[in-house]
């Protein structure tokens, strides 16, 4: 990992120096090693504080959306899974590809600090992540942890090591060994009775505080003004006044990104209430795959989203209302 | 694939030939059947009244038995085929009959018309294939002019039986052709001989039979074949002055296959 950080830094400096780009979207270090924040570096500010380590799991593609009208050129560091979002943003004209220089980084999975801490490790000073096991240096000594057990949830259903779009590639990665099948969570819910499903979502969604973290991180949720913020939309609300509004917000949010969601998992990652929001998006993905054939949003740019597409022989909508079973 | 075979009452008594020749022929054709244990009478007639359940139960038990064995149910007698097919349809499509019958029978699992009822002729046509049948014929019945007598039970109502074109059927003619004989099409082959009233009103039966025989002879039939013991009896016993030889189709089949 440390080697990769150096390589990146060196290359980015060069890109800034030779004028290929004006800015870099990367991470800046915080107080602790796991305390990293997405940041924009400019030629003027230089790459001081630039960091790339096992905790740089966030998807940076969304930060380009607000730069669409900028005439500056940006370098962005994207992991394989982030490139799907980039493709989707290009498809929807939400970023200006001409002004973007994509550095694809090889990836072998990123670490969820909460999962590390949950294993009883504290006072972390450094992490050495070169193997299936990671070594954690802390003020109380070193410990060795199986990497798979502390991966980010989204890495546990890794889409693979292939970069779907990039201008250059730095470092090699491997597909992280997946811990669970992508749709296991959805299937588990589907196997429940309607009453159980209802109770599950009622208890999960009632935790929602409408902080909009899911919406803000989501690389598919890029509306200038969200319908839920638009006073004239008849559905605007700043907080959930009723159980209905909790459901409404999340159903509509999932519906609006259906066919566009790349399943990056950021929504669940950032949710302060730990609501498994990805289970909503994955339900749509699973249905789309089952009803209309396998589809991966962002697999390439300029794909046609299945919700703005059809075939004459599509499955009838009554497939749901006439469905047998629980 | 083994077929559950349902002979029915008459094939065990007065229509033994229909049954025996069928068994021999199937053996020659390499089709395996197993007679259903403890089969019950189909009831002889399909009860048309919508509120009749009891009279359908024996058929339902038979159908369910075949379902439990996981085999199609092979029929031979036209009347049995008619009754079993229609009762099976009821179990598939009529919720009321289905519910009441299942409540009464209380099988381990409710019976919902899962069994496929297949007539011997359909088996010959679709499973064996008339082309293949023709190849297996050792004694072609060359030069014999044979008329098919369908009667009513196999064909009607066509939307339920789905056996053949009710007004211009061809399965028996194709069968006759496969045996090497010449099928003779005559208009009254799908007209009723009056089987149900053969006990109570012989004179009426005679009138019907005479029309059928006259029509067959006019078109040049030398012999008729049938799949129905009731028609067989009626055409033989209740014919007026003019008679024609009537055989079960299985007898001809056995003859042509050289197993008679």
């Amino acid at each position, binding site marked *: 990992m440390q080697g990769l950080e150096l390589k990146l830094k060196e290359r980015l400096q060069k890109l800034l120096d030779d004028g290929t780009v004006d800015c870099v979207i990367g991470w800046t270090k915080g107080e602790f090693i796991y305390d990293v924040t997405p940041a924009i570096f400019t030629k003027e500010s230089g790459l001081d504080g630039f960091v790339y380590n096992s905790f740089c799991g966030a998807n940076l593609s969304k930060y380009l959306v607000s730069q669409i*009208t900028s005439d500056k050129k940006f370098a962005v560091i994207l992991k394989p899974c982030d490139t799907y979002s980039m493709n989707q943003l290009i*498809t*929807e*004209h*939400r970023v200006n590809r001409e002004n973007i220089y994509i550095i694809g980084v090889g990836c072998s999975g990123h670490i969820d600090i909460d999962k590390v801490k949950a294993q009883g490790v504290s006072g972390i000073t450094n992490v050495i992540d070169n193997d299936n096991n990671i070594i954690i240096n802390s003020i109380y000594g070193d410990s060795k942890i199986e990497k798979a057990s502390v991966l980010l949830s989204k890495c546990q259903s890794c889409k693979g090591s292939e970069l779907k779009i990039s201008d250059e590639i730095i470092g090699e990665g491997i597909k992280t060994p997946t811990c669970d099948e992508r749709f296991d969570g959805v299937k588990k819910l589907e196997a429940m009775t309607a009453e159980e499903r209802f109770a599950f979502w009622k208890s999960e969604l009632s935790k929602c505080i409408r902080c909009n973290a899911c919406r803000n991180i989501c690389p598919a949720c*890029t*509306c*200038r*003004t*969200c*319908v839920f913020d*638009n006073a*004239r*939309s*008849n559905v605007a609300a700043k907080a959930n006044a009723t159980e209905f509004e909790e459901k409404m917000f999340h159903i509509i949010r999932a519906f*609006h*990104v259906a066919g566009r969601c790349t399943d990056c998992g950021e929504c669940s990652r950032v949710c302060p209430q730990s609501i498994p929001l990805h289970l909503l998006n994955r339900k749509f993905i699973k249905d789309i795959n089952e009803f209309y054939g396998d589809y991966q949003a962002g697999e390439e740019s300029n794909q*046609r*989203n299945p*919700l*703005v*597409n059809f075939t004459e022989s599509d499955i009838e909508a009554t497939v749901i209302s006439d469905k047998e079973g629980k | 694939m083994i077929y559950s075979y349902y002979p029915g009452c008459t094939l065990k008594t007065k229509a033994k030939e229909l049954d025996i020749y069928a068994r021999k022929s199937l053996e020659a054709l390499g089709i395996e059947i197993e007679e259903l244990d403890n089969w019950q009478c189909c009831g002889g007639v399909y009860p048309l009244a919508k509120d009749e359940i009891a009279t359908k139960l024996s058929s339902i038990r038979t159908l369910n038995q075949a379902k439990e064995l996981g085999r199609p149910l092979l029929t031979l007698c036209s009347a049995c085929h008619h009754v079993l097919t229609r009762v099976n349809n009821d179990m598939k499509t009529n919720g009321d009959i289905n519910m009441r019958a299942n409540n009464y029978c209380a099988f381990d699992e409710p019976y919902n018309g899962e069994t496929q009822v297949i007539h011997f002729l359909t088996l010959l046509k679709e499973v064996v294939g008339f082309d293949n049948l023709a190849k297996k014929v050792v004694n072609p019945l060359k030069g014999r002019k044979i008329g098919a007598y369908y009667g009513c039970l196999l064909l009607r109502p066509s*939307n339920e039986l789905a056996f053949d*074109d009710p*007004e*211009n059927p061809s399965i028996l003619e194709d069968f006759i052709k496969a045996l090497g004989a010449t099928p003779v*099409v005559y*208009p*009254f082959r799908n*007209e009723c001989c009056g089987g149900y009233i053969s006990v109570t009103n012989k004179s009426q039966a005679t009138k019907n039979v005479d029309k059928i025989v*006259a*029509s067959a002879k*006019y*078109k040049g039939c030398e012999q008729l074949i049938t799949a129905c013991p009731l028609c067989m009896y009626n055409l033989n016993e209740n014919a007026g002055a003019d008679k024609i030889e009537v055989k079960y189709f299985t007898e001809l089949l056995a003859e042509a296959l050289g197993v008679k």
Partner: protein
Amino acid sequence: MLKIGVFVCWCGSNIAATVDVKQVVEAVKLQQGVVFATDYQYMCSEAGQLIMRNAIEEYKLDGVVICSCSPRMHEATFRKNAERAGLNPFMVEIANIREHCSWIHKDVEEGTIKAIALANAAIAKVKLNAPLISGESGVTKRALVIGGGIAGIQTALDIAEAGFQVDIVEKSPTIGGNMAKLDKTFPTLDCSACILTPKMVDAAANPNIELLTYSEVEKVSGFVGNFKATIRKKARYINTDLCTGCGDCMSKCPSKKGKNEFNCGLNNRPAIYIPFAQAIPNVAVIDPVQCIKITKDKCGLCQTVCSAKAIDYKQQDEIIEREYGAIVAATGYKPIKLDKFDEYGYSQSKDVITSLELERLMNAAGPTGGKLVKPSDGSHPHTITFIQCVGSRDISGRGKCYCSKICCMYTAKHAMLIRDKYPDVNVNVFYIDVRTPGKNYDEFYRRAVEEYNVNYIKGQVGKVYESDGHLVLQASDLLNNEQILVNSDMVVLATAIEADESAKKVASMLTASIDTNNFLTEAHAKLRPVESPTAGIFLSGVCQGPKDIPETVSQASACAAKVIGLLSKAKLVTNPCVAHSDELLCNGCSNCANVCPYGAIGYETKLINDHGIRENRRVAVVNPALCQGCGACTVACPSGAMDLFGFSNSQIMAEVEAICKK
């Protein structure tokens, strides 16, 4: 605060019998914004409209709700009326309390409650209506007629006479359709060819008409005034400019076993053929399936005998794209197949024929030169029996549920013609009812009975069979309560007619609606009988429902009048209920453009002032001339930037809320 007026129509007793209109008036008065409410017997009458206009002026109404019949019926009437009183016509909403309420409910209390709910929904909606101004679009001064039978020919001739260009697209090699096959026509017994062929010639000669025979329309896009059609001209393998129609090729062609379509398959034709002597265009066509040269690359005789050098075995299909202002469907009919009616023995005896086959057998240009003979042995028949309603009025699933309308009359015609030409032939007709509405029709049928002694027997036929060298009909004679056996040499089946198999595809292409029998639906059964509900699409002839020739021709001309009316307009008023995009909300994501069937959404990079932030943004722009107002884009748009005038998000939500309010 908007001022709303509500007008509740009784529609005589149609509404008032099941809906307490007074109670509706009282209830709507309680709604916020309603400053005036009243009821009247017939709101659509001049007196009713005056009440509305007066109220608009007196109360300075901003919006109007009419509780009446379906908006599909009188929305236009009331909108016009509002305009007369100076109110924008799009400030009118209709609550459908007749078709959707009084006519389907019996209980007055229930009906009244529902009527109030529907009125409240309309009030909620109208409060959010905005005045709309209709735009304009141009009209391509050319019409397309699909089908070259008598209906299509007549429509095309009338349109061409008015000075507009018309294309007739006919799928078979000649125009003329079914009428060209007929011998005589009822009720005047004039010869079909004598009245049809001059029209065919006129159509070919008219400089405003272009005939595209052996061609099919493959795709239609666009909208009223501005359609675009893709037409496939199938390869004839003949250069039509060179072919003189001499027919030498036909006599030399060795492949003579093709079924002669024109003679209903009663005789054969060669692989290269001219459908019939008066065919228009009078040029040959090669059946590619039958031709030995095309299938096996042998023969080539026709090319050697053709002195005009017109034969081209390598000819390919040609694709033509044209623009039209109006499209006429004139796809016609065909007799149904009789394979489900074999109790009549159609497939078992050659002497059982359909009425259309009889037309060919009696036609001087037919396979027998007009001599009526038994098809089985060519001998003279002594008795001919007609059976009516073969497949008509049949709900068993075998036939068609409707009356085919023409059979009673043509059967009387056939019976009469046979008795006239061959007085020695006995004619029986089995009928259920004899239906003869029409000028001189019943008189015509009575002549068959009274002058020509045609034996009409009330009853149906159960079975037709052969016995002793003739056909026997086992039938009911209902008036005598007997089952009778009738001997006959020939049996003629008055076969039901059905919409041509192309109708479904054509309707689908034209987005014209179609009924369960595949007949095209008219915009209104009584008041707009020749228009499809889709603007710019018109219906001519039997494609709309069974008709005889006089009716077909009148309808064809009526249809032409409507087309001419449309094509004569310099500009069309467009529906202002179109989509529009809020630039401030638009993400420029293209989802809306992806679902737009009209290509009406484009993108522009515009300088946007978003609350003081000025920047160039890619935003969707709707072309109102192209947009037809379906609203598919509004749902594809996640941000809600795209909305629809007249059916806006907030209007529909307001209706939902009003309806769900307990």
